[in-house]
């Protein structure tokens, strides 16, 4: 494994540790400024959506619809219909693997 990957792991561990320590050490129970909290609260929907589309609708730097797109869509449908996470993910795997086996 390249040195670069070890550096990524170290960097990722460092930023995660610092972020997790910041609240307990520095803020000491004080609230974040409301504007900062507002932005951070919306970070998850923005990043999750971006990760999902780059994973399910793209292949590298090319837009691409494939078996994985269908699998992820099925998971979304199951969850939307009130299904819980395990059946949703399991069905996504089955659909994707099945389509790839056929194609």
């Amino acid at each position, binding site marked *: 494994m390249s040195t670069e990957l070890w550096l990524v*792991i170290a960097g990722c561990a460092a930023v995660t540790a610092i*972020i997790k320590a*910041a609240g307990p050490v520095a803020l000491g129970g004080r609230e974040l400024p409301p504007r900062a909290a507002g932005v951070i609260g919306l970070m*998850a*929907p*923005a990043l999750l959506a971006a990760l999902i589309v780059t994973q399910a609708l793209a292949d590298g730097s090319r837009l691409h619809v494939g078996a994985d797109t269908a699998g992820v869509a099925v*998971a979304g449908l199951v969850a939307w219909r009130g299904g819980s996470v395990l059946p949703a993910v399991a069905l996504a795997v089955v659909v994707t693997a099945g389509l790839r086996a056929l194609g």
Partner: protein
Amino acid sequence: MDPAPSTPAPADVPTARESFRLGVRAGVPYAVVGCVLALSFGVLARDAGFSALGALVMSAIVFAGSAQFTVISILAGGGGMGAAIGAAALMNSRFLPMGAALAPSLSGRALQRAAQGQTVVDASWAMANRGEGRFDRHFLFGASAVQYVTWLGGTAFGAFGGQALGDPKLLGLDVIFPAFFLVLLLGELRDARSRGVALAGGAIALALVPIAPPGVPVLVASAAALVGLRQRAGDDPRRGGVT
């Protein structure tokens, strides 16, 4: 300022050890899901060029699923170190308000508090919340401990034994995390604003995929969250969260 009770706790308040045990029990379902996710992480990390040991070390010292998947999906797509670490930091930024909320329920010196803060993961944090700004920290430690064990176990299984499973793509293992993230995202869409931000984030990323270097679309998509600068009454940014 020290919230740890110095007087004997009433009988109906669980002791530290009981709280820890209750936390472990409550963490089990999340630990099971985490194990499956970690297995797919181990397999995909190998595909992205990590050694089995590297994947295991990452799970051991990062222990943040969404950040780990973010990193390997950016690296596997050809993205650089900076984009990968930057996106992981943004993904983990939610731990800032979560840690701040937890702070009054922790005790000890700065280093101890920093160490205790490392146990925050989404499900544990949410379950340890006792309302009115109070958290049961021993419950939190227990719930995270069991998830940590299966997170490492799943990663080891996927990273060291993944090859025996065959081609991860043929098995559809690569859809586990986007499918899981989609389920999480649907849970995050509580109101019109979060739906709008998710749509904008997805649209920005899609538009940039063909023209921007790998990893950059996800980073830039985080700008959609800047809508949060506009305050509204009754906002509670600490609700929800991803794994």
